[in-house]
């Protein structure tokens, strides 16, 4: 199996697990309570509000062949490309449309910043930035892979079952379009990264295993307890 296929299979399985989860299906079927939907929106905002910073980190460790694509991705997130759509602003507009007041939106930004803080302060398990960079790159590109396939479905669910306007859901519809390209470019970036830093298939497999030990989408979007219930680590009603 070539490396590209190895990564795509990993991503596809991870996304499939998310799409097949009872939480995701409840979201699509309109079976989540309003409070749970709002929690989902809050979690999603916290997960992505600081994406430009994460991409900036990836840009700083990117091999020459991948630097341009990652730089473009970062500028696009910031709204500094030709389209001029700042993605964090789209998330805050989504939160406002869902009824989050200014203080709640500020709390979302603080929560997102806390995630960046954790990334910087958690004891490092990897021995070098090379491995950490690969793990972050895999996570980011797996998110792009997922969004290219599920973002419009999530947007439609929130439109139909939470009554949000298509304008307020621009983040999802925009991602469903641009991330098809990003998803392809992302895997190319990973392949370039592996080649540049001379990471072999065995080490890649281990870092994939470490990075995706938990379903990152379920944990980030629905929370640790929901993930534990989906994976039977906890009973549904402890």
């Amino acid at each position, binding site marked *: 199996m070539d490396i590209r296929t190895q990564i795509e299979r990993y991503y596809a399985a991870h996304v499939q697990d998310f799409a097949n989860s009872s939480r995701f299906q409840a979201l699509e079927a309109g079976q989540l309570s309003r409070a749970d939907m709002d929690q989902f929106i809050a979690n999603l905002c916290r997960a992505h509000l600081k994406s430009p910073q994460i991409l900036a980190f990836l840009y700083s460790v990117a091999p020459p062949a991948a630097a341009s694509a990652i730089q473009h991705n970062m500028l696009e997130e910031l709204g500094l490309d030709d389209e001029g759509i700042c993605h964090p602003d789209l998330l805050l507009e989504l939160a406002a449309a869902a009824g989050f007041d200014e203080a709640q939106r500020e709390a979302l930004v603080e929560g997102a910043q806390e995630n960046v803080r954790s990334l910087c*302060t958690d004891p490092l*398990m*990897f*021995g070098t930035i090379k491995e950490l960079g690969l793990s972050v790159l895999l996570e980011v590109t797996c998110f792009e892979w997922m969004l290219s396939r599920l973002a419009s479905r999530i947007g439609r669910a929130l439109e139909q079952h939470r009554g949000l306007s298509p304008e307020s859901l621009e983040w999802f519809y925009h991602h469903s379009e641009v991330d098809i390209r990003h998803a392809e470019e992302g895997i190319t970036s990973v392949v370039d990264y592996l080649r540049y830093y001379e990471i072999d298939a065995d080490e890649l497999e281990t*870092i994939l295993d470490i990075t995706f030990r938990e379903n990152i989408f379920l944990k980030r979007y629905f929370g640790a307890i929901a993930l*534990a219930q989906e994976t039977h*680590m906890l009973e549904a009603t402890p």
Partner: protein
Amino acid sequence: MSHQVVSATLFALRIPFVEAFAHSVRSRTYSDSIVVRLELADGTVGYGEAVARPYVTGETVESCLDFMKERIWLAVQQTAYPSPPADSAAGLDWLRAIAHTLPTDPAEGTPGHVVAWNAARAGWELALVDALLKTEGRSLAHILPPQRPSVTYSGVITASGIESAVKMAKRFKQFAIPHLKVKVTGEGDRDRIAAIREAVGDKPSIRIDGNGAYDVEGAIATCQELAEFAIASAEQMLPRGNPADLAAVQAAAPIPQMADESLITLADAEALIAANACQWFNLRIAKCGGLANTVAIAQRAQAAGIRCQLGCQVGETAILSAAGRHLAAHLPVEFVEGSYGKLLLSQDISRHPIHFAHQGRAPLLTRPGLGVEVLDGMLETYAYQTISLKS
């Protein structure tokens, strides 16, 4: 100056694991720690943690909670606790004095057989120590002065199929963890250990842990079969029982034996030493009844030439991890387990992550008390039972 405890809350937690953890006795998918949060009259708050294991001390979560609220709380609220001494040379006496205030016997008529109420006592001892040290702004390192600049932890490979075990071994290799412990069950041990050794190479040390899954003949045969993989020690191959049985294994097996479930009290330590039953003790704070009792057993081991490992209970949170860090830095232990934090728990309960880093290394803790900032919100999120105690 003395301090009075005015209230306490017991949180019975269920914190999910990232992945299931199994050994020969059972498989776990969540931490079932009990956190003791107590408040002194001056408002200082301290945290302790108990991990009840019926197959270790005989305590269950429910019986542990009952013992805490019916026996320990009665004693604690009637006691005036001294501030920690300014002179750290008096630290161990202070620690022993605190432990001495905690009852050891259950109320009359309590059903079930319990070897010792050590998990319950450890939870309260830690909470008291944490709070009392905080009143003076002192770290536990003042009472247990560190003898090393950092602590190096082992990785533990759960009882699982070969593929899963190799996957875990490769993770630990990626993290350059220098010592590994592998749970063995009596089924396919040789193939698993061979695959793990092949995956990690010759460099990391490997220990095995049977959790009492073998009889004398089986333990000897297994050790003979696995010796070629350079196994540093074999932990608790037999069930807790007559030390003479373990001595028979120690005499015949090519791998040094380590006592774990057989070592709960100081009397156990004396019996094991008298029988020449093993070369290693596995100390655990929750199993041995807290810091003071664990130090006492370690001192006895040292005097008898027994080597020590500081182990942990599966699913310990940041509180017991922090206590373990201090103790591991203070005692002459050769292997250390614990501080897995978010490597095992889906979320930990402290603001600052406690888990070790690359090469299993973790720094010493220097903040007041045990050195961790517990998030009450996390306790409330993961508590399925909360008991409030007021004097």
